[in-house]
């Protein structure tokens, strides 16, 4: 070896760089959640419930008539609701439980940032949601019965669900942050959960019209479920839901959950600095200026959500709409072939004089360009109704019945025409919002495939739990 030959210098020992605190906390908390068994137990309970529900849906002769798309939608709704519930309960337990168990003090004594601690815990709690979705997807696959709905259902369910569950988890964490005891945080979280779901318990007519809009504004869940129904069941294209606002297309149904998720996350983000041994609010919430800023932000948020949801209710306007106004009590219907639908229209005279006689007629159009021509007479025993006249401001309600003769995708709409005064005159008819009819063919769900999932998934999870438990016992030197 020549003296000039290069001799490699011994490598300096690599200095290990520490992981970010939020990641360390997330990794530990997620391990405790899943390996400790709480997460698996919750998901196992959900799987059993899901299995029973799916089996009943698939094997019951009457329920089997429900179209697969609708079943998938129902299951997706259930999984989002359960995901919200599980995550909210786990979040409510998270900080106040640690506070009660004395674990929080030890964490607060370390030099880690409060915000990073909270964010790590938040992400660990949120890890329940992908697990809920992961066990749901096989059931969706079975229930979708070969239709092309599985992909869109999984994607939209995951996207909208993530926004909702993130928001709900953040709310649970904030409650936990501000509660001194587990009992308080759990009671508050459950109370809030009931409030969020209360709109679904209201009668159907209360969920439409201005009241429905208000509920959508208050309940991002309703907006999400409505969106999923339209996209998954009613075969609406995304562009159907977008409204132009300031030159941009805005998906108004998605604004509510997206804003909710973001707003609640931001609330948690900014209040997380108030994590203390005794429950209390962050310093900024104790300042008048901080509270005023928060109130302004919430007002802006509600304003945005309101205006976005308000777009959903904007009726097409025209010259006739100013004089005769016709409204309808529903905007969509999912039906099986051979089913009947009863709906109501309301006709109001907005003109400054008493109206002439009015004819109100029902029309149906097949939205599939290759579909059969629809003869409304076949679909409704009474497709035209007559009104003598309406005084200024007077309204009249009319009931209608339509029978689903053929399967497919249809739009039903109402037209009100005031009788022209002279032979040479014409009038602009008033048109209602359409009812989007999605009529499924008579298919029977094949229940054979479902049993595998109904029994297999809980068994698989239970086996995982037993394996983890045994592995820990062996590692600790137990028998």
């Amino acid at each position, binding site marked *: 070896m020549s003296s000039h030959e290069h001799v490699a210098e011994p490598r300096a020992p690599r200095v290990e*760089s520490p992981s970010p605190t939020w990641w360390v*906390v997330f990794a*530990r908390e997620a391990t405790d959640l899943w390996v400790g068994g709480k997460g698996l137990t919750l998901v196992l309970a959900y799987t059993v419930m899901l299995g029973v529900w799916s089996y009943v849906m698939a094997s019951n002769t009457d329920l089997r008539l429900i179209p697969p798309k609708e079943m998938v939608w129902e299951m997706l709704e259930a999984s989002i609701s359960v995901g919200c519930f599980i995550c909210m309960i786990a979040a409510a337990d998270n900080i106040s439980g640690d506070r009660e168990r004395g674990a929080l003090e030890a964490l607060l004594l370390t*030099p880690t940032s409060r915000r990073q601690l909270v964010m790590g815990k938040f992400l660990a709690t949120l890890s329940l949601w992908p697990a809920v979705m992961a066990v749901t997807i096989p059931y969706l696959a079975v229930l979708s019965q070969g239709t092309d709905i599985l992909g869109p259902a999984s994607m939209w369910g995951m996207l909208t669900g993530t926004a909702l569950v993130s928001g709900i988890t953040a709310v649970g964490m904030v409650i936990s942050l501000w509660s001194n005891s587990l009992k308080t945080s759990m009671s508050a979280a459950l109370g809030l959960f009931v409030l969020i779901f209360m709109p679904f318990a209201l009668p159907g007519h209360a969920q439409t019209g201005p009241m429905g809009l208000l509920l959508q504004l208050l309940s991002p869940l309703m907006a999400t479920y409505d969106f999923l129904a339209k996209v998954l069941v009613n075969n609406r294209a995304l562009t159907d839901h977008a409204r132009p606002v300031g030159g941009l297309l805005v998906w108004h149904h998605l604004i509510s959950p997206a804003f909710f998720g973001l707003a609640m996350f931001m609330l948690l983000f900014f209040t997380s600095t108030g994590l203390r041994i005794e429950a209390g609010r962050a310093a900024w919430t104790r300042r008048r200026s901080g509270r005023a800023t928060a109130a302004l932000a919430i007002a802006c948020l509600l304003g945005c959500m309101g205006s976005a949801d308000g777009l959903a209710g904007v009726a097409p306007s025209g010259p006739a709409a100013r004089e005769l106004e016709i409204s309808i009590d529903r905007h969509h219907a999912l039906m099986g072939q051979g089913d009947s639908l009863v709906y109501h229209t309301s006709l109001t005279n907005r003109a400054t004089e008493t109206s002439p006689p009015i004819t109100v007629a029902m029309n149906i159009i097949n939205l599939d360009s290759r579909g059969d021509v629809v003869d409304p007479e076949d679909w409704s025993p009474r497709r035209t109704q007559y009104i003598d006249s309406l005084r200024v401001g007077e309204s009249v309600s009319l009931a209608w019945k339509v029978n689903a003769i053929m399967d497919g995708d249809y739009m039903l709409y109402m037209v009100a025409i005031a009788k022209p005064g002279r032979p040479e005159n014409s009038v602009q008819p008033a048109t209602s919002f359409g009812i989007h009819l999605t009529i499924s063919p008579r298919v029977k769900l094949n229940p054979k495939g479902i049993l595998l999932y109904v029994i297999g998934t809980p068994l698989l999870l239970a086996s995982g739990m037993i394996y983890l438990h045994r592995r820990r016992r062996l590692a*600790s030197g137990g028998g």
Partner: protein
Amino acid sequence: MIPRDDTSGPRASSREILRADGLRMFYGSREALKGLSFSLGSGRVLGFLGPNGAGKTTAIRILTTILEPSSGSFAVDGVGSSDPQTIRRKIGVLPESLGFTKSNTALEHLTYFGQLYGRGAKEAQTRAQALVQEVGLEQRAKSPIGTYSRGMRQRLGIARALVNDPVVVFLDEPTLGLDPRGQKELLALVHRIPLERNASIILCSHLLSEIEGVCDEVVILSSGEVVASGTVNDVVRQARSNAMQADGIRVRVPSASVSKACQLLESLPEVGAAVPLRGVVGWVGITMVESDDGTPRDQHDNNMILDALIRADIAVLSFQAEVARLQDAFLHLTEEAIR
């Protein structure tokens, strides 16, 4: 009990490691801490004493940056209380409530806390292994904490408090709920911390014998106020100078013989007074007559008392010849503050 050594090794060091100046704390209109001030040298052990509600926990929580004081300040190793993040890097705490996750093992728990102090995963794991050995938990290091005894959990808590090599360690009731053997083992572990790590200790305990045995200095709190502070001997002396009962010589005889023993002892020229002690059946408190020049009496006077009782055929059930004890000082000082 571990003997106190006021002069040996690092414990004699005088570098100031913790200083508190006028710490006050209000909960609404109630003042829980009324101007706590003290200082602690490096490698010293300070006992925090006080009855329930005296403000000990509030004081510890302020000094460990869990609570913010209403006024006043403190500094740890030169770092002021306005920088709690840095202070947390310098202190270790064994809180009264340990808050372990039962499904975690000791190694997992210590590794996690090592990472929270900014160590990489491998480094934290190596450190955790060393710590479980240091506290004698290596045999059960991979067992879930849920299976540990109370003593093992306390030792793990001490290991956690040492995970960042602190300059001050706060121990809140470390022997609470332990059996005598467990107490002894834990105190031996506590005693090693200043000697081996030159870390100072603040020890909160209700067991006065524990404070007496381990601590160099003591702070007695009552109703949020410091009623005495200094070395254990200083505090005891201070309490005694505030007119304590007797010199601390006590003898326990059968309750039927108490009056006989009092009469007999008072007849001795070296004894000034012998009176039954209130609240403790069978105990007689003895005050010796001071010598003419005020110097303490000969220790052999104790033998003379015993000899007289034995000759009179009075059974001696117990005899305490200590001049005065911390317990007396504690009871006296806190009672006085409450009045």
